[in-house]
C-alpha cells in the first residue's frame, strides 16, 4: 500500500487508511533509535531540501535528522541568506531546486497555500512543514502517533485543544487527523481566537476552560503568540494566564491518566505552568522523538512515488 498523492500538503487530504499506514510505518523506524547505529539505507542517493521561509528549530532539525537516518542527502536553504532576498519568487526558487534534482522539498512558509503553489510547479515531492494558519501535517501525525502509543487507541478518546485555534496550523492538522481517527474533539479559548465555523468540522467549542477539561483523556496546549495582544485579540497576557493557563489545579479536572501535550516552543508561565510541563503526565519531549519517526515514515512512503 502507498499514499495516493505525491505530496503531503495537509491531513485534510489524507484518508484514515493513509494516516494509519503512516503511523504503522513510523513504529519500526522509532525502534531504530535505541540501537547504536540509527541509520538505514532506504533513501540513499535521494536529495532532500529544507526550504524554510520562517524561523524553526525543532521542525527543521527533525526533518533533517529524519532524512539523514534514511541516508538521504539533506540541504538546508536558509531563506534570509538566499536569493529570495534578491526578489526571487517561490516558484522560481522551487524550479531552481528542481534543476538541481531535489527529490523532496520540505517547505515552511508564513502564507497559507504556499506549499500547494510550490507543488503545482515542481515534480519533486512537496512536504508541508507548516503554512500560515493552514496546516502542519507532520505535527498532526506525530501528535496522533504519540496519543496512540500511550493510549493504545485514538477512537473514542476525548481530546482538548487549548488556546489560539484561529491562528494555529497545528490545531487544524490535529482536528483533521483526530476527526478521521474517530476521537471526540473539544477546543477552548477566548471567542476572538476561535473561529465559530470550526464547529462545522464536528468540534465542540468551550470558552470556559474548566468546563472543557472535565473528563478529557488528552490535552494539547497551543503556543500563544504574545504579539496577538496588540491586535486586541485578548486584553493582556496577565488576563490570558488568568483564564487559560494550564495549571496543576486545572489538570486535576481531567481524567487521572490525562496526557499533556504541547507542540513547542513553550511559553512557560503563560499558556502552561512549569509544574505541568515537567509533570509525569506531560509527553512533550516524547512528541519530539516521535516526530523524527513519523517524518521518516512520510519520507519513506512518499519516496515510492518520486517521479
Amino acid at each position, binding site marked *: 500500500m502507498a499514499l495516493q498523492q505525491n505530496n503531503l500538503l495537509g491531513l485534510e487530504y489524507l484518508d484514515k487508511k493513509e494516516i494509519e499506514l503512516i503511523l504503522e510505518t513510523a513504529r519500526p523506524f522509532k525502534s531504530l533509535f535505541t540501537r547504536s547505529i540509527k541509520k538505514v539505507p532506504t533513501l540513499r542517493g535521494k536529495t532532500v531540501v529544507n526550504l524554510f521561509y520562517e524561523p524553526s528549530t525543532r521542525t527543521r532539525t527533525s526533518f533533517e535528522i529524519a532524512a539523514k537516518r534514511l541516508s538521504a542527502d539533506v540541504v538546508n536553504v536558509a531563506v534570509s541568506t538566499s536569493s529570495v532576498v534578491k526578489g526571487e519568487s517561490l516558484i522560481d526558487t522551487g524550479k531552481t531546486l528542481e534543476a538541481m534534482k531535489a527529490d523532496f522539498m520540505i517547505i515552511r512558509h508564513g*502564507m*497559507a497555500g504556499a506549499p500547494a*503553489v510550490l507543488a503545482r510547479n515542481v515534480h519533486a515531492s512537496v512536504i508541508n512543514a507548516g503554512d500560515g*494558519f*493552514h*496546516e502542519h501535517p507532520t505535527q498532526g501525525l506525530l501528535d496522533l502517533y504519540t496519543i496512540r502509543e500511550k493510549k493504545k487507541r485514538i477512537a473514542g478518546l476525548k481530546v482538548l485543544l487549548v488556546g489560539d485555534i484561529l491562528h494555529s496550523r497545528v490545531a487544524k492538522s490535529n482536528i483533521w487527523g483526530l476527526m478521521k481517527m474517530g476521537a471526540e474533539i473539544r477546543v477552548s479559548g477566548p471567542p476572538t481566537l476561535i473561529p465559530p465555523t470550526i464547529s462545522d468540522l464536528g468540534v465542540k467549542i468551550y470558552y470556559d476552560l474548566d468546563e472543557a477539561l472535565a473528563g478529557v483523556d488528552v490535552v494539547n496546549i497551543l503556543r500563544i503568540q504574545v504579539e496577538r495582544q496588540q491586535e486586541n485579540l485578548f486584553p493582556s497576557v496577565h488576563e490570558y494566564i488568568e483564564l487559560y493557563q494550564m495549571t496543576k489545579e486545572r489538570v486535576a479536572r481531567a481524567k487521572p491518566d490525562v496526557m499533556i501535550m504541547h507542540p513547542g516552543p513553550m511559553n512557560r508561565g503563560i499558556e502552561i505552568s512549569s509544574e505541568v510541563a515537567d509533570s509525569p503526565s506531560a509527553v512533550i519531549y516524547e512528541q519530539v522523538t516521535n516526530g523524527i519517526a513519523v517524518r521518516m515514515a512520510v519520507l519513506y512512503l512518499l519516496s515510492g512515488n518520486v517521479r
Partner: protein
Amino acid sequence: MKLLIKNGRVIDPAAKRDGAFDVLVSEGKIEKIGEKIDERDCRVVDAKGKIVAPGLIDIHTHLREPGHEEEETIASGTRAAARGGVTTIFCMPNTHPPLDNAPAVEFVTLKAKKEGVVNVFPIGCITKNSAGEELAEIGVLKKAGVVAVSDDGNPVMNSQVMRRALEYTKMFKLPVIAHCEDKNLSRNGVMNEGHTSMVLGLRGIPRQSEEIMVSRDIMLAELTGGHLHIAHMSTSGSVELVRQAKKRKINVTAETCPHYFTLIDEVVKKYNTNTKMNPPLRRAQDVAAIKEGLADGTIDCICTDHAPHTEEEKNKEYDLAPFGIIGLETMLGLVVTELIEKKVLNWADAISKMSANPARIFGLEGRGNLKPGSIADIVIIDPKRSYTFGANDFVSKSRNSPFTDFPLRGFPETTIVGGAIVWPRNAGTNH
C-alpha cells in the same frame, strides 16, 4: 456605406421593443427600424436566429493605462470589450498617475479616440490621489468629460469627506461610485470570512465590512441628497440595505458583477489566485440574494470590474497575488448562462442592466437604445451558441479569469460601434 441588419430579433428595452425587425444604420446613427427594410448599396449583416440589442455598456473597468500597460492598454482593453459585445466602457481612475486632474482625463479620452475601438468614458477620482482626504477638482474633471467620480479600491473612510463628495457633486449631477469596504474590518483579508477561509487558513473579509459602508453611504446619501452608486455588490445584506433605501426614495443605484451571481467562496480551494478579487466571492446565500436583487430591480446594472493582472503578478502565494479578475469577454456569456437560461431575468431585463439602465443612470445621451436617431452601438448575439474560453483565447492582455474553460451560452457575434463593425472584422456582405 449604410449598414443593414436583417432578420434578427430586435430587443430594445428602452423602446419596449421585442420582435422581428430590420435595423438600418447610416452615418453612425440608427436611421430606421422596420419589419422589412430593403436598401441598396449597403453592407448587410444577416441576423437570422440572432438577437440584435443595444451595445453593452460596462460601467466598471480598469484599463490600466497610463501606468500599467503590461497588464492592459486602452487599445487592448477596448478590443477585449468589442469581443465581449461591449460598445461603451467606463474606466476607473486608479491608474498611475490617477485620474484626479483634467490633463490625465484628457489623455485617456484622446488615447481612446486614437487607439480604442469602443467608446471610453473616464471616471474621475473623488479625492486627490484617491487618498480620501481632500476633494479632487470635480468640476474641472466634469468639464474634462468624466461621467462619475470614484475612489474605487480606496474607499473614502472619512465620513465627513464622503458627505462633502455626495453634497458637492449634486450641482454637476455626477454620481459618486462607492467601493464599500470598511478597511479596518477587512484588514489583511484575502477571501470571504467563513468555513472555507477557516479550513484554508486564509485571513477572512467579513460580509459586514461591505455592509457597514453600504449602510453608511446610504445614510450620507439621505443626508445630502447626492447620487450614490454602489459598486460591485456581493452580499445579501447589501442587497437588502439598497432595497430598503430605494423604498425610502433615497437617491441610490447599484451594480453587481457576473462572478458574484456565479461563484461561491468554495472555489478558492487549491489557492487559485484567479478566484481572488475584492469584494471576495461569498456564500451560496449571497449568490441567491444577488440574483433576487437583480430580478426585483434592486440592482440596476451588471458590469465587469475588469481588472487585468499579469501572469507574473497572479502566479504566486494567495496572500501576495493582487485582487482582481478580467471580465469583459465573459460578461454576456455569464449573464445568458446564469441569469437568462436559469430564468432569473428575461432577455429584455438582462439587456437593460447592461445598456438602458447605465445610460439612464449616468446620463449618456443617445446610447443604450436602438431608437431612430440614437448612436448605432449594437451587439448581435447568438443566443444558442455554446462555447468556452481557453487560457490563451482572451483578447485582453491579461488572462486572470476564473472562467477559463467554463461552459458558456450566448455568444456576442458581431459588435458595432457608431455604425462601424469592430468585431469581427469580416462580418456582413456588400449588397
